[in-house]
């Protein structure tokens, strides 16, 4: 079973990469981009076949390693 972990900078935490991307989009003439936040996606291929258990395992992995919950939030989606 595949799980996708979305890791994003928490609201209120400065995101310099997002800001730089926003400036670059502005420079390319894309008007009206009000905010950009840049995070990462981590795909896990899990042996687990039970969706609830797979999701719980991925969330545990996110808390322990994949995200630093001081500065990042995460969300798990099963694919």
């Amino acid at each position, binding site marked *: 079973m595949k799980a996708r972990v979305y890791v994003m*900078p928490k609201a209120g*935490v*400065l995101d*310099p*990469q997002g800001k*730089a991307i926003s400036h670059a989009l502005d420079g390319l003439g894309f008007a009206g981009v009000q905010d950009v936040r840049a995070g990462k996606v981590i795909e896990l291929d899990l042996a687990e076949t039970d969706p609830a258990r797979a999701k719980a395992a991925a969330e545990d992995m996110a808390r322990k*390693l*994949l995200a*630093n919950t*001081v*500065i990042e939030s995460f969300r798990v989606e099963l694919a």
Partner: protein
Amino acid sequence: MKAAIITFPGTNRERDIRVALKRVTGRDPVMLFHRDALPAGLDLVVLPGGFSYGDYLRCGAMAAQSPIMRDVRDFAARGGHVLGVCNGFQILIEAGLLPGGLLRNATLRFLSMDCRMRVERAGTAFTSRWQKGATFRAPMAHGDGNYFADDATLDRLEGEGLVAFRYVDDRGEATAAANRNGSVRNIAGILSPNLRVCGLMPHPEDLVDDLMGGTDGLPMFESLAEAFATA
């Protein structure tokens, strides 16, 4: 003083720390690799700078999971002294030994330049040779040194006197211009509640000899030597 320096794949400046410790103690520290076990009877463990594991995932995140860090956590829990410089600071944060996070520098630029720090907490094993408010120069070399913590954590750090160093200008003022990486409240280094774990981004070990261009960083290592003079 019996000190150990831990290296990971991608560590650098470990020999600079070694030079600094040997200079003040006359004894060579133990050099350990991440697969080694921490020997007994240590006074100090140092995590040097560098780019351990290529900064994959987050700076310090991989090193924080390596087996020797379990020993370092146990050592700290028993009251051992731990110093983390630059990537070592990032590893201490990722290992949960110090609070907060280190984000990409606010400018998105790698900073390779000198900074000035003000000693906010004197009288610790890391800072006893300075007076509170003293300032000193230190080189920095990092891309992810932008310290962040939530307001409750910051207020606790400030309230308990656990901010060790702040970035300041030449007049000793904690201005925005002196805060090149964008750290919240100009924080350059912090301490654990028992004052025995210290992490900072700049490199005091790179100014411990006139041949290096100055001895501004020497008091940190003299403080440590003094703290463990009998050991």
